[in-house]
């Protein structure tokens, strides 16, 4: 259970190798979370360290970490992942939906089937997982689903419109789900980072106002504590994109990237 000062106890991370997801988990563990479930594709070997660079509360025992196999594209198995997670750690205080893939627009242009497959991960799979999460959180009467959206979906650009359109769909889904859960005690937090410098964007030139996974995680944890519905990282992207939505398309399509 989340305590009166906003510290949580249990976390389920869908996409157990996600850099941003793991950073959020580490920060939550640093604030006292004691039971973590990492759900990931083909888990093998040692699970990723959740106490990396984390200062645990004084006197706290090391957190309990469980790993579950999770295949985003196998929607039929999603329900079981949640059931297992609840069996392992009890009520889920925070569920982080952090899995995803980023392909280049040129590759998608050349291989429409690959584009469709990635959209299925970045959007369709989140719909299934999100609805399962909502069912569990609604039953509990508490808990927050953290959805990693992106500014790419705030206004879709020609430079990455396959990825961007999936994120746009995901963002809309998360907003609707948050509204559907209003008054149940369960919540949805939408995180909208800009360009994140990390493994997923290796080799790409950073866009303006980039952030690191750590910065995204810090903003997410602050938003969780404050009970916010959405957070832009960095915060300046919020007003920037509200303006960019107003740009005429003739101008918008000339955006270099």
């Amino acid at each position, binding site marked *: 259970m989340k305590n009166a000062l906003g*510290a949580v106890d249990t976390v389920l991370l869908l996409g157990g190798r996600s850099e941003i997801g793991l950073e959020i988990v580490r920060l939550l563990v640093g*604030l*006292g979370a004691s039971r973590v479930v990492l759900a990931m594709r083909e888990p093998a070997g040692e699970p990723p360290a959740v106490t990396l660079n984390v200062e645990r509360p004084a006197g706290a025992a090391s957190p309990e970490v469980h790993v579950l196999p999770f295949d985003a594209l196998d929607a039929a198995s999603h329900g079981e992942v949640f059931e297992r997670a609840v069996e392992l750690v009890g009520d889920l205080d925070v569920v982080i939906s952090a899995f995803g893939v980023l392909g280049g627009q040129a590759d998608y242009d050349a291989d429409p089937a690959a584009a469709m497959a990635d959209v299925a991960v970045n959007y369709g799979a989140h719909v299934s997982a999100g609805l399962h999460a909502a069912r569990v959180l609604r*039953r509990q009467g508490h808990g927050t689903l953290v959805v990693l959206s992106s500014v790419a979906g705030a206004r879709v650009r020609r430079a990455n419109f396959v990825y961007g359109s999936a994120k746009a769909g995901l963002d809309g889904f998360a907003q609707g789900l948050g509204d559907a859960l209003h008054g149940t*005690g369960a919540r949805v937090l939408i995180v909208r980072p800009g360009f994140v410098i990390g493994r997923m964007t290796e080799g790409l030139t950073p866009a303006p106002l980039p952030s690191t996974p750590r910065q995204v995680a810090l903003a997410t944890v602050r938003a969780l504590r404050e009970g916010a519905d959405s957070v832009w990282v960095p915060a300046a992207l919020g007003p920037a994109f509200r303006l960019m939505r107003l740009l005429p398309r003739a101008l918008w399509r000339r955006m270099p990237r």
Partner: protein
Amino acid sequence: MTDFLTGWGRTSPSPATLARPRDAAEVAALVAAASGRGVVARGLGRAYGDAAQNSGGLVLDCTGLGGWTFDEASGLVTASAGVSLHELMTALVPRGWFVPVSPGTRYVTVGGAVAADVHGKNHHRDSSFGAHLRSLTLVTAGGAVRTLTPDDPLFHATVGGMGLTGVVCEATFGCVPMASSLMRVDVRRTGDLDETLAAMAEDDDSHRYTVAWIDLLARGRRMGRGVLTSGDHADRGTLEFAPRTLLRAPGWAPNGLLNGVSVRAFNEAWYRRAPRRASVVQGIAPFFHPLDAVGGWNRVYGSRGFVQYQFVVPFGAEKTLREIVGRLSSTGTVSFLTVLKRFGAGSSGLLSFPMPGWTLALDIPAGQRGLSRLLRGFDERVAEAGGRVYLAKDARLRADMMARMYPGLDRWRRIRDEADPAGLFRSDLARRLGL
């Protein structure tokens, strides 16, 4: 009916289905029909944290369990769980009787007093509520209504058991006779923490009721200065009880109304207002329940609410107490009402809070920066010193700390598991602390 419930501190609201049974049979029927999210009893909602909340489950509003009897020859009261100490005082005081233990508010139910094993200003002499209990009836997980006496292990798991062994439906306890409803009260100002501790130890020998208010924002030489009030029932006088609510706190108080500046000003005024040393005569309500005169006083903390932190450290661990007071004072932590008390012998409750030693209670606005870290540091020191924090006030303790602070926990678990193997009785506090 689904309702969002909070404790008195107004933090962490959670939704639950509320039902209001009127007798033990109705309680038993509701318990038998409870779902997998479990059930917990609630009284007047004076626990500060999440003890009487059950997110997604069933909460029994037990204030409908009314009715009580009094046997003047034995001084025994048998009261349904929903009867408040206010109701009992209103009827008993004019007859020359008083409840054995009264916490800082009389708006608690008998059921809540048992479940939290509440204590009052007479703890150094008379221990806590559970020590005066002769028997209680409990609706257990199977829906059975059981009468328990101190011979049953379940009795000691229920006293202070935070409602997690079943629903207390009735309790029988001894009351104390008094000649007057007036209190003879000695008030004195103390200049620093050492003087406060010494004065309290001295007054505990000569007075039935003692408590000290501490000015936490005073620093340096004046750190831990306070006002000690020590009282006894007067030998002569009238027997009457007609307390009034002087004012109601508004519902729109902004966050941050109680801040370093306003609390410092209040503390200074409160300290100056107290006589250096004087004897006064007070009524029961102003002496025991000064805050009850302000209706809904918890609202002055604003929408973010507040947390209460009450700990006890055993005698001999005064160093820990001093360190904590020093840290609170040096960090400028805003605690509006800081209260110090010396505890006597504890009761037999396995999860009861009181133990011989010093207890300090603070209430702090929940939005205060760095509060989480500060209090976790205190948890560590308190546990280290062999002390504990009070579950009825807690809203933020961690499960591993709980296990270190309550040596009776394993035994309590065994008894609870036997009485409720499926863990039907559950609260948000139980989930948070892994009980």
